[in-house]
């Protein structure tokens, strides 16, 4: 397989309700990524679009609908979708387009427009549950994640207060992100006192719904070196799906994330992730998920992540910066675009171009991860400077 690099990235602002259509958001992000790489659309060989349920945009086959805004007119085009895992899966799909030798450049665009979906975009997920044993009880994702959070807390003896440190950190990190929707300085107390939605989940434990788009450009080794002096290499990719018999597994630990991470680390030659990963962007739609995913990514032992958050190890200037972007909790959660925002963050951080968000110490390698479907998919990308 050929080496593949990221050579450019671009984002729209993430916002509650965008004036732009999904096509227009896709264009803004794709154009920004081309400008960032100093490229034109004619330099692009193929396009990958990552976007979550059709129901969000209210357009069936919305991959096709979004294609001309994504630069796909007259090109080989693929739309991929693995729920919340999409934003880190799309660059994996772009990676194999190039690693295979079929293409030299790939524009990867992720878009989500959730604001139009009524009464609430979560409605798109009401039908993912078993239609006879679960749906008649009207569960929504928030309730299910509350079950998972409680199981995780109880198994390890972790408190809500400890977990709240993640929300405080990420929303503060987002104050330095120009795309951020919910940057704010809050305290653990604020999180604890925010409205209880489904115990143990409070309002400030959760990321918002958002409109937004993100794009990155991938290139083969030969092309990448012509495009930029600072290509950031995709060193490893991994993805894995657990069973949709979700009630038949123990929710305290995301096995599927670990399997995806092991696949990516093996490809990247990473043997000791705790030492060899310098910066992490795990998926954080809820504050406990950042911790859950750090454990699945083998960045710490099971049940140890909360302590790292409380002790400041995962702060931007800590030993292991986690979500220095501000994550979904702070930058926002336009599902697929949020995952690709994490890939963009690693790109800028590893190039030393993250501005006020730059983590100290010239990080050499990072990992990004997303999670989705019925709490069952893990998608992982390891990126580095060589």
């Amino acid at each position, binding site marked *: 397989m050929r080496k593949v690099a990221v050579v450019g990235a671009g984002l729209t602002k993430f916002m509650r309700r965008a*004036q732009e259509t999904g096509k*227009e958001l896709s264009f803004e992000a794709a154009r920004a990524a081309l400008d960032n790489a100093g490229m034109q659309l004619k330099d692009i060989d193929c396009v990958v679009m990552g976007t979550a349920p059709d129901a969000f945009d209210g357009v069936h086959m919305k991959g096709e609908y979004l294609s001309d805004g994504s*630069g796909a007119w007259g090109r080989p085009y693929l739309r991929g979708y693995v729920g919340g895992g999409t934003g880190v899966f799309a660059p994996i799909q772009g990676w194999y387009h190039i690693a295979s030798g079929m293409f030299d450049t790939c524009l990867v665009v992720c878009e989500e427009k959730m604001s139009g979906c009524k009464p609430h975009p979560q*409605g*798109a997920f009401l039908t993912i549950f078993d239609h006879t044993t679960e749906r008649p009880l009207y569960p929504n994702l928030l309730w299910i994640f509350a079950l998972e959070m409680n199981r995780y807390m109880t198994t390890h003896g972790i408190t809500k207060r400890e977990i709240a440190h993640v929300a405080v950190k990420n929303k503060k990190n987002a104050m330095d992100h120009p795309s951020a929707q919910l940057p704010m300085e809050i305290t653990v107390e604020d999180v604890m006192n925010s409205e209880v939605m489904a115990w143990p989940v409070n309002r400030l434990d959760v990321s918002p719904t958002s409109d937004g788009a993100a794009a990155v450009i991938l290139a083969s080794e030969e092309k990448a070196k012509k495009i930029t002096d600072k290509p950031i290499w995709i060193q490893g990719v991994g993805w894995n799906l657990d069973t949709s018999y979700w009630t038949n597994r123990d929710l305290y630990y995301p096995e599927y994330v670990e399997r995806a991470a092991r696949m990516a680390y093996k490809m990247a030659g990473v043997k000791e992730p705790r030492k060899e990963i310098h910066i992490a962007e795990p998926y954080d739609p809820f504050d406990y998920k950042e911790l859950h995913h750090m454990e699945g990514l083998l960045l710490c032992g099971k049940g140890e992540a909360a302590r790292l958050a409380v002790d400041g190890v995962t702060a931007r200037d800590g030993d292991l910066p986690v979500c220095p972007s501000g994550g979904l909790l702070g930058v926002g959660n336009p599902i697929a675009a949020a995952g690709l925002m994490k890939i963009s963050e690693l790109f800028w951080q590893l190039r030393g171009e993250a501005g006020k968000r730059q983590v100290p110490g010239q990080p050499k390698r990072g990992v990004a991860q997303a999670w989705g479907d019925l709490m069952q998919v893990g998608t992982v990308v390891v990126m580095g400077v060589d």
Partner: protein
Amino acid sequence: MGVLEKITSNQELRSWPGEIPLENLYTMGLAGERFFRGIKDEAKLLGTRCKTCDVTYLPPRIYCQGCFEKLVNWVDLPPQGKLETFTILNQDRAGRPYKTPRILGLVRIDRSEGALIHYIQGLEPQKIRIGMKLKAQFRSSSERKGSIQDIVGFVPA
């Protein structure tokens, strides 16, 4: 004998009715907002132009799909064009016959690369010819709401 062969009506199976309960408030978008304001406020068709590619987009886009430049050059287009193809509708979507057949046409708008589909009015089906000139008939200003239905249909120019 397999299960499939035994069951001739799915009413015999225990079933559970359900739906995906979603509605959408669709965004007009930056280009759509301006396009439909043109129709509502001034009964005119607006396009965007890419000089590099020599293309005029109708309905307008804020980007050129060919060269991916941002388009800022808005142009007024004549609300008329050439009939490129048509169909004569004898039944509605539920299969009920129309009392009078309706004609749906694809009208390529003059001075643009774009076309609109719309109903053709004021012509007997046997008088319709591909290539004929048609113009948009707008509703009166008080009736216009900023929708494609602000155009009643296309009539002979």
